[in-house]
């Protein structure tokens, strides 16, 4: 069970989400493949958070690569995405998301990022620590208990890649058009499933 990345975005409906900060934990990938993995992670995170409604909690599974992207967008338009493997418990992932949003607000009030139109790196040291801590969801378990009652009243919307699409869009088609992905990363993503079986790229 792994958390690969935590990303924070400014989300305005109808617009492309703006990256505010993203941190990665990619030590399980080959040293020379991490560049492509980073780009794919950013692409998946941005696309998924951009299709999440305010107040909604989404766990989108990409069956081809056995990865799940968990996202939430709050009422002020701050979105958070957490990319994990498919075994990682969704409830813990969404707990992590909520904590990340809180930590981000502590350092960067809304006035600081509301007007941004292009990607930035708003340093948030707490994210790095949370990324390490939540690699082991059992360690994070005590946090869940404190919020148990609240969790029970909120359902997590689980969506597939197909449901997320608009007008028949496919994620792989989106990949071909994305600016986040370089030439090689697009090929990497398209073949992640096949490469996975042979060489352990992913």
């Amino acid at each position, binding site marked *: 069970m792994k958390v690969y990345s935590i990303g924070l975005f400014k989300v305005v409906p109808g617009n492309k989400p703006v990256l505010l900060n993203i941190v990665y934990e990619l030590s399980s990938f080959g*040293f*020379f493949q991490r*560049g*492509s993995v980073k*780009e794919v992670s950013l692409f998946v995170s941005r696309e998924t958070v951009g299709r999440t409604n305010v107040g909604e909690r989404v766990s989108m599974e990409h069956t081809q690569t056995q990865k799940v992207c968990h996202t939430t967008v709050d009422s002020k338009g701050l979105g958070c995405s957490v990319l994990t493997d498919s075994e990682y418990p969704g409830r813990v992932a969404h707990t992590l998301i909520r904590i990340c949003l809180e930590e981000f607000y502590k350092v960067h009030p809304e006035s600081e990022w509301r007007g941004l139109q292009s990607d930035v790196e708003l340093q948030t040291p707490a994210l790095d620590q949370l990324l390490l801590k939540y690699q082991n969801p059992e360690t994070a378990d005590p946090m869940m208990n404190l919020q148990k009652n609240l969790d029970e009243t909120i359902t997590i919307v689980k969506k597939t890649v197909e449901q997320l699409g608009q007008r028949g869009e496919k994620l792989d088609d989106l990949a071909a058009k994305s600016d986040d992905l370089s*030439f090689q*990363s697009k090929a990497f993503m398209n073949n992640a499933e096949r490469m996975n079986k*042979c*060489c352990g*790229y992913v």
Partner: protein
Amino acid sequence: MNQNSSLSSSGMMGSGGFGFDQFSNNFSIKTKQIESINKMLSLKSESSSSNNNNNNNKAISGWQEVWKVLIFDTHCSNIIAPILTKGALRNQGVTLYLPLHSDRQPIQDVPAIYFVLPTSDNIKRIAEDCKNKLYDNIYLNFASKLSNQLMEELATLTIQSDSVSMISKVYDQFLNFISLENDLFVLNNPRDSYLSFNDTRIKDTQAQENIDMVVDSLFSVLVTLGVVPIIRAPKNSAAEMIALALEKRISTTLQSSGGSNVFSNMNEMGSQLSSFYRPVLILLDRNVDLSVCLHHPWTYQALVHDVLNMSLNQVRIDVTQNGQTSKKSYGLDSSSDSFWSSNTGAAFSSVAGEIKSQINEYYQQMEKLQQITDIKLDDSDDFDNNNKKSNENKTKGLGNLVQEMDEKKRLIDIHTNLATDLTKNIRDRQIDCFFAMEESIITRSLTDKKELHSLITSPIVGETGGRGTLEDKIRLLIIYFLSTKNVPQSEMDQYEDALTKMGADLSTLDFFKKTKAFNESLTAIANVNQSSTQSSNTASGKIGGFMQMMTSVTGYQGVESFTNFFQQGVRALLPKSKDLFVTRIVESIMDLKNTLDADYLYLDPKIQNKSNVPKRTTPFKEAIVFTVGGGNYVEYQNLQDFSKKHNKKIIYGSNELLTSKEFLNQIKNLNKN
């Protein structure tokens, strides 16, 4: 330490009267490395020597006045061996050369030149030599940069033993690579380079070390050439990591005090010349074209490498004389062997003809030599003074001619033996059939499915009706699979079953199946269109005729019948002109086409403001192409063919040059979990 030694980076010797043509001819990695090593061995300081002076000294006296001892480690021995003969070392006054880590006796009144890698083990041994006062004084030359830490270690050890005064000079030579040809180099590192950059299990620290080793050697190459190139590399790859680290190193060096001396050759040319003639350094991953590592080669040098396992320009083959077969080693040097120089990239079928021509020419010259001898005998009857002088002149010329003929005969014997051994392998394994089939597959002109089926499924060589080794068949199948758009699953199953029954290990094929899918996506995204080429057929009858030609080379048969076979062979098996994928990338970059390389990094170490790098607007005339994770003579030859056709200069380098066997072995290890 400071009183008795000085640390300086070795720069290239300048030469006056620089012209465009002269500079253009200097884009040769081997020539430059020889110059640097000769300068290192001459013990003359940079400011007091020049090419002209050296040439004059050599003309006046064949021997240096100062005798020297050369001491090297195994790494630096590999650097010197392919490019300097014992005679060349003697011309530099080196009468004795010894390994560093060996028992050595004291030698008085002779300076010692050390040429070693900067490692802790080597430093300790050098300090021990100083302590034991083996030599009068020593000159330390490190193949790459000596770190401050190691320098301090050397200083500490020599101070402790009160032997600091032994050291005359310490140099960073930046020579940490191996030149094989004027336009070909490899790195001086442990093998298995494909694994080093493609094994996903590799640890981060080891991966970083692998990158640093390549950066260090490429830095040496650039210092030796005296150029600061534009750097291009694809994103998200080992090549990118190397490109960024190398650019940073060059940029840092240029900014440091005295750093520009490292590329001192650049200053000699002036700013206008330098901006016009800056080459482009193109870094690529081996993965951009894997099938080239599997092709059965058909050019002379590539065959000698792939079939006879040539290594560092040395080859060891079976030679049969008087019915007895023994192993024999030959050094193949382009600078002293004009036949090798002219034919490295020639199709083997024409090489056989060239050898025949050389033999005929030799016999003709022997006849002339005999005539001269006859004249001499006739003249001896006359005691006239004029005739005596004439005889003296003829005798002198005769001696020179005999010497030339001996050398010519030696070279002819080498290539006759090489061709004989190659012919035997080609005939036994039917390499010509595999080559022709692969050629038709790659040029999209495959029409003889029966032949393909026969080559893959017939028994292995040695059995009745055998064709090719198991490895030959796997190579052909992989190339067929990689180069064909859609191979029906039933067809693949049929071939795989046949090979499995013969005992083949098909794990390598699985790897290429995954890689093909990845590469197809790359191609699709880049929207690259394969250019079509004219089709050609290889009839079995011509193969038969060709094989007879092979026999005739061995037997020195008559010219008439030989000519007929030769013509058939040439027509059947001359390689089609086709640019490999790496060559097409290089063309796109050098001619600023911005197609295959649209996504590549563009790095200029001379530009300090990285956010706004102005791009070059005129095509490049010179390029250094380096493949990370292994290279290949076929790829090298293809680039040279391209450069000759388009009047460009290209230097090719890689971690190592891989035979197909070595490459497949690394793929197998990649798959092992």
